């Protein structure tokens, strides 16, 4: 599958969601990866974990600092990209596909409307 960023929805806090039916695939944006630089660790979510839109589901650590990751949607984690934790460089090369973090079975798909389009997100990053 090839995902284009235009097909994604974004949080202001730099996470993205790709929706197929009631499942959202979640990752962090290329902009976030570039801002963090030198990633060394990611605390991954677990299958079965409940996540809430706008709340922390894991954290990513660079040489410089630790940053929380916030879920764009509410629901239950049904799949986790565990190999990513040992290949964080994937986030540099392919943040919107191979760099996915978790898949969430959404309990409230209407939340998606609150997320930013690619265009709006790019505008935010240009301003920040």
């Amino acid at each position, binding site marked *: 599958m090839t995902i284009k960023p235009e097909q994604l929805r974004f949080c202001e806090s730099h996470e993205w969601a790709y929706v197929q039916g009631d499942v959202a695939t979640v990752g962090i944006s290329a902009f976030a990866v570039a801002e963090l*630089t030198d990633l*060394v*660790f990611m605390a991954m979510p677990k299958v079965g974990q409940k996540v809430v839109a706008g709340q922390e589901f894991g954290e990513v*650590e*660079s*040489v*410089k600092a*630790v940053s929380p990751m916030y879920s764009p949607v509410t629901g239950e984690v049904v799949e986790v990209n565990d190999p990513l934790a040992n290949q964080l460089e994937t986030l540099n090369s392919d943040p919107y596909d191979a760099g996915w973090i978790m898949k969430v079975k959404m309990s409230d798909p209407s939340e998606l409307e609150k997320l930013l389009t690619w265009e709006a997100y790019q505008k935010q990053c240009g301003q920040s």
Partner: protein
Amino acid sequence: MSPQLASTPLHSWHQSHGARMAEFAGYEMPIQYEGIVAEHVATRTAAGLFDISHMGRLRFDGPRADQLLDHLLTRRVMDMQVGQVRYSLMCNEEGGILDDVLVSCLESPSGKVYFLLVVNAGNHAKIVQWIKPHLADFPDVEFFDATESTAMIAVQGPQAIEICKPLLPSNAISLGYYKAKVTDQMSKPCIVSRTGYTGEDGLELIVRKEDAPRVWENILMAGRNLGIKPAGLGARDTLRLEAGMPLYGHELDESINPLQAGLGFACNLSDRDFVGSKSIADIKANSPVATRVGLKLAGKRAARQGASVLDHDSRVIGAVTSGSFSPTLDCPIAMAYIHPDMAQSGAELQVDIRGSIVPATIVPLPFYKRTNTK
């Protein structure tokens, strides 16, 4: 809150070369250009170029300048010869550390001997205030704060000296470790010092602020085939941490005394009286309350300042003061203050990283020691 930040004479260079800027000690400083790890590795393997103009540069002139400084510094100053540099602390009467500094004894081109004190940016204003009443006792000592009129640039790494060869007179290139000289570069005045804060060989240059951009560009040009990179405060922090060097506000503050910090070598207690000397002598006679140690952590996560250090029964025995992932050792490292009974090298401890308990081992400081000592 005052949002007005000071900037160094190299500020516009940093901005136009993609540096990520952030506030540090009241200055807007470059944190990184290409990335902390790339800049760190360049400094360990070739050279890094650092703008450290935010550091305070205080000059003391007059025949009794040595007496004044001998009274203010934990390290003996009275016997310093022209060209010598010493690492020292400044303490309050209780022996708490006010700052850690480098003091240099220099000779101007006209033959005047004077002293230069390089203080931390974050302590600059505090130290100037603290010195003032002491200056009143030495009316013949002339004090000049040269921070704003000058810039300070560090070239650090195994290629640092080679890179500077075409730019500096040979008597500056041949300076010994912890030696300094007033000289010139490209016929402009310059103080060269064989010192640094990275664990590598290298030089620190003080130049007039108007000369700084050209000196900076010249060094980058001279080092372009030798792998030099501009490096920000991010890499400066990981480099000094690997080198086991304390940072004020982390390992050092007014609640810490020099003996706890493992800096007893910087206190010359015999035959002299300086601010805090009685307290430090008392502390020396009794046992210390906590000791600075190095920790190597399991896994990939770094323990940051404030993380608790635990013994095997999960009792808190200390706290982390600095921590980062170490690019050279490829594992997380930290410095911490812990109970002295637990501070044996090799001891297996644990660190609480935001709720996760991670195994940690005490290792000797520094974590990294260069092999190309000259």
